[in-house]
């Protein structure tokens, strides 16, 4: 099985990445993510705690949404291609929300045998509100 799913030659500046739709989010996924990541902040598990903290109820780990964005990148370009991923958590993701991850190619650079693609990435909820915004650098193979 090939890890790289795209070649640098196939990518054009301005290309849209395929959408990745995740959710609707259930509490069990936040609980599983807490176990997998070790982030047991009760604000993601315990509605009463989250309300008392002034957050209006449970919300998802930002890192879960970031992992969704990472999946959108690797579903497109292949596993092991992400060299850099930086995001800002722009809005809270709530239970039952759907998270749609999107991206657009900003630039391509090739130097010797190293080919990198710069991508703008973001995720939005079912109301179209951005919950994650960021940028990524992917290293992909060449057909050459």
């Amino acid at each position, binding site marked *: 099985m090939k890890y790289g799913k795209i070649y640098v030659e196939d990518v054009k500046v301005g290309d849209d990445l395929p959408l990745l739709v995740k959710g609707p989010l259930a509490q069990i996924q936040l609980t599983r993510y807490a176990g997998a990541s070790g982030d047991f902040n009760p604000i993601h598990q315990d509605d009463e705690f989250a309300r008392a903290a002034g957050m209006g109820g449970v919300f998802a780990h930002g890192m*879960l949404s970031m992992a969704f964005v990472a999946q959108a990148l*690797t579903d497109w370009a292949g596993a092991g291609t992400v060299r850099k991923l*930086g995001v800002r958590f722009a809005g809270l993701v709530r239970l039952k929300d759907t998270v749609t991850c999107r991206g657009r190619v900003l630039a391509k650079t090739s130097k010797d045998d190293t080919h990198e693609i710069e991508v703008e990435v973001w995720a939005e909820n079912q109301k179209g509100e951005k919950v994650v915004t960021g940028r990524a650098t992917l290293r992909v193979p060449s057909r050459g």
Partner: protein
Amino acid sequence: MATALRKDVIGKEYPPYAVTVERGKIKEFARAVGDLNPFYLDDAVGRASPWGDIIAPPTFAISFRDESADTSALLRDLGTDISRVLHGEQEFELHRPLQPGQTYLCRAKVLDVYEKTGKSGPMAFVVRETAVTDGANEIVAVLRHVTVVRL
């Protein structure tokens, strides 16, 4: 009632800690995200890959923590508690994928603490960096975290 955050943690370096990546934890993480990429989950695909084994998803290193340390140490150093904390920004610089059976050394430090007043009131931003190196002391990943504290 706004309470200032302690700024004397700027520049503080926490004791380095080692993390050995377990195969099952990589798979548990990928499944929790719902990312069923065979390069994370299928040992045979991993063996035949350029890395010779499965690899971890890009954000897996967020699970690295110092199990021997008091996990509230930073919050206490800052003078806040977990109910006031939100994740503001996160960045991963990945030099190569993390793999099972490897032991990595993590070095975390506080780069900056600054305050700003936003729509929802006064907030402090805590910027941290964690450098992850391998057994040969080569850099494998750098994580930059911005934590927002509601004051």
